[in-house]
């Protein structure tokens, strides 16, 4: 980065890194929930993705492969969740919580040999020409691959849900599994796919943590980000665009309060630390005041066990 980069750009760059894992985890969970499945195991899936992708980069040195491994690890966890809740019809809430505890434990076990191992982090990919632009260049076109991917993933999911037939089927399964079933859709299969997508995204969010955000492995390194992602989905009223907005708002306030402290703004730091949570909740509550929007977007059958009638 050149010396002319303004403070705004510097702050924005930190915000982008802070928000990206939240975007991945939340957008994945959004798709899962839209199909009527509430998977509270995001934190566990993130940690699993983080540790396996870091293990892979340590062993092979191949970043692309490691990201795939992270996605795959999250999907395996999601598959376990799906088997318990969709096939065996266990409670989604209890199973999700168990998945988080399980993921925390498994990742700690796998990661034992990785403590103290260093990795320089995902390479930044500067887009030719565009990255040379003042301000906009460093802001938008000099990131690692996952940041670009997160920017593409959100509109892709939005279009998929709103404008495609499979997206419509997914939403109908989430709104009324009985009706969808009566129409001949394979409710359980759709939910499996949505759950696996959510797991893959959580795994990728974890991989971002251990390979880009703080490139290392330490136990429990997600430090509650999975739960924040879960909250973002609800407060964004299950709309992809608002998830992106919520993640950047949360990341933005987090970084701004750090800057505020550094500059010496005389507000108790405990209060400053609360700000991201407070602001995000207030803003997103304001969004969800529109009850029509909530009714249109909230999956009506979320968390319910599907028992085929025939």
């Amino acid at each position, binding site marked *: 980065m050149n010396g002319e980069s303004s*403070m705004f750009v*510097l*702050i924005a*760059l*930190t915000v982008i*890194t*802070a928000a990206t*894992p939240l975007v991945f985890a939340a957008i994945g969970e959004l798709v899962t929930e839209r199909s009527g499945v509430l998977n509270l195991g995001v934190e566990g899936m993130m940690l699993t993705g983080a540790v396996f992708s870091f293990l892979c980069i340590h062993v092979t040195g191949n970043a692309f492969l490691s990201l795939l491994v992270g996605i795959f690890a999250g999907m395996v966890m999601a598959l376990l969740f799906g088997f318990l809740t969709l096939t065996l019809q266990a409670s989604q809430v209890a199973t999700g919580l168990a998945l988080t*505890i399980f993921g925390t*434990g498994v990742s*700690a076990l796998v*990661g*034992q040999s990785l*403590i*103290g*191992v*260093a990795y*320089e*982090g995902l390479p930044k990919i500067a887009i030719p020409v565009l990255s040379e632009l003042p301000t906009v260049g460093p802001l938008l076109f000099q990131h690692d691959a996952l940041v670009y991917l997160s920017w593409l993933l959100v509109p892709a999911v939005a279009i998929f849900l709103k404008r495609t037939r499979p997206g419509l089927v997914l939403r109908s399964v989430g709104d009324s599994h009985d009706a969808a079933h009566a129409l001949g859709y394979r409710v359980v299969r759709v939910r499996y796919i949505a759950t696996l997508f959510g797991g893959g995204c959580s795994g990728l969010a974890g991989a971002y*943590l251990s390979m880009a*955000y*703080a*490139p*290392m492995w*330490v*136990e*429990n*390194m997600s*430090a*509650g*980000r999975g739960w924040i992602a879960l909250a973002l989905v609800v407060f964004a009223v299950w709309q992809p665009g608002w998830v992106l907005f919520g993640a950047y708002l949360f990341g933005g306030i*987090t*970084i701004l309060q*750090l*800057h505020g*402290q*550094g*500059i*010496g703004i*005389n507000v*108790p*730091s*405990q209060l*400053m*630390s609360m700000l991201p949570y407070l602001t995000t909740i207030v803003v997103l509550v304001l969004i969800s005041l529109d009850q029509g929007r909530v009714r249109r977007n909230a999956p009506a059958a979320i968390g319910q066990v599907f028992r085929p009638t025939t």
Partner: protein
Amino acid sequence: MSDVSLFTATRRSLLTLAAAAAITLPGIVSADDPLKVGFVYVGPVGDHGWTYRHDIGRQAIEAEFGDKVETTFVESVPEGADAERVIRRLASSGHGLIFTTSFGYMNPTVKVAKQFPDVKFEHATGYKRADNVSTYSARFYEGRAVIGTMAGMMTKTNTIGYIASFPIPEVVRGINAFSIAMRKVNPDAEIKVIWVNTWYDPGKEADAAKTLIDQGADIITQHTDSPAPLQVAEERGVLGFGQASDMSAFAPQAQLTSIIDDWDPYYIERTQAVLDGTWESVDTWRGIDSGMVGFPEYGPNVPDDVKAAAELVREGIVDGTLHPFDGPINNQMGEQIVAAGERLDDGVLLGMDYYVEGVQGSLPK
């Protein structure tokens, strides 16, 4: 196994169950049984910081005494009611010596100790003692005086970034010791403090480091537990100090040195005392002289004059000619609060709740 009850009895609590799963099962009790030494940890052994160093101490006991001891540990035990259950479990399952390694275990430790007068307890960083409860801590602030000296000499922007966890006396003491030493060698240098309100969140610690560097800090130091800030320093081409353990693997260029918690000698000494039957309740607060606070090799970017100055401070602290809180000390307004020739005593240090000169901002209370 004699200790299956350990699992069944704690089944009521999910947290304790998870914790109990971490206990290595002790063997069958017999007359010439080895001494069982138990550890209660607040974090995971893989935090690469506080708990990690305590667990290194536990392993040192095993290496030193071999078959004569048997160690067990319970990790990630929340401070409070769960801690009491875990400590009681250890005490009632034949442990002769139990180390509880976080401040918040103080009351549970004292309470359980009353019920098990024959078991010896060692509580880290607390102040409540009993006939069978000792306390111990390390004078980490001595290490801060050494690194503060180095930072004062090496900063070019005269801005040091300090990532702090919680505004408790131990952390404030570290900031002040750093500032006093830094101002002695560089009266223009200042410390920017960012409180992250966590001991451990690599992402947030990294964000705080980036923020401080963006605001002009060219040296980063921390009182949080992960290597993330140092890693950011390495990436951004600035310098920094490790925390609790040698973190040079994460920042081979950036790490100037680190303050290492070394519990090994103390743990071995106390275990030996129990084996010999000479264990007594004591209050231990040791620093660099005993090796409880240590340093790794200097990083490649430390010039010789800085090394020499750091060594001088270190030696001064060891031989007692220098104390990190020797007067004159000014408060943030520049008013003298400790006169030349005076020295703050341990009582004041243990309750420190104000910033000294050189620290920017105001201390959250």
